[in-house]
């Protein structure tokens, strides 16, 4: 199996396991799920180095979402 397929397969497995595990733990914060998806996506990118046809839009979207989540958390810590 080539690395592109392997990367997508691993990502799908990670996402499924994450949703199952966090749902089982009754996690109700959407930012936790998105943070985990971001982490898993970039782990797959780093490990498998899949080819992309053009600009990696999901990576940019996930990174942007993660940056917003972190910013909100920092603001929450600083200003209560």
């Amino acid at each position: 199996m080539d690395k592109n397929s392997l990367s997508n397969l691993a990502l799908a497995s990670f996402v499924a396991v994450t949703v199952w595990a966090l749902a089982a733990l009754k996690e109700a914060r959407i930012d936790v799920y998105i943070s985990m998806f971001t982490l898993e996506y970039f782990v797959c990118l780093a490990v498998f180095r899949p080819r992309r046809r053009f600009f990696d839009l999901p990576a940019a979207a996930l990174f942007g979402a993660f940056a917003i989540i972190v910013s909100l958390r920092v603001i929450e810590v600083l200003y209560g």
Partner: protein
Amino acid sequence: MAFGAAVAAFFWFIMDNVPLTALGIGMAVVGSSLAITPLSPVPSATVRRMLEGSLLNIEALLEELGASTKGYYVPKADGSVQVYVPMDKGSAVNAGSNSNGNDDGNADAKGNSNPGSGAPPLDAPVDGLITKVGGRQFLVIFPPASALMKNLPSDDGEAGAADLEGAISEAVVEEAGLADSLRVTESGQSVIVEISSPKSKAGAGRVRHVMGSLEAGIAAAAAAKARGRAVRVESEEDVKGRKRNVALALC
């Protein structure tokens, strides 16, 4: 991807269910990852066989012409890289010699190549199979993966070793699939490339001596393109069959 987004929106706005919303987002992420994955990439084994085949022709040419001196990988203005193989037996170099007034010298003052290295300048003419540069005759060859080099950016030596490693890795590992990974160490005019699990069996005898193995040749071409300088494969050493250490010289 769209289905995942629709699922996420449905469970977020209507059902107010966070885990299933997350499942929808996850489906959108996986879907978009699938969407930007190339549908039918050329298998790396196929690329490898084609490159090995092209090396066999060069091997026959070198045998026929009796070229035995190490060649120089010279980046050209069009983005490709050509190999200039000196046809004279002696390796002595007349730095800056210019016996033929119409030919270029060995090097110019802009740092295109190192005076005294014997490397032809980057703008060396290509007049047929054998060309004359600075009074010396060179056999001009398009090495395997010469056209691949057009995909690589040229930094004219301004970037660091990490970028050089990235350029060589892109060509040898990603594009050609000739190794699992590699590491590059740059020290002055010398570049050491440690290649893990080289996969090609091509490149023996004369072609290996003149141009290096397939992996070394592509690494040299990538280094020449990345640094904007002529590069020569100085030596190669197989370590336990799993690694190959290649020494390149920037000329």
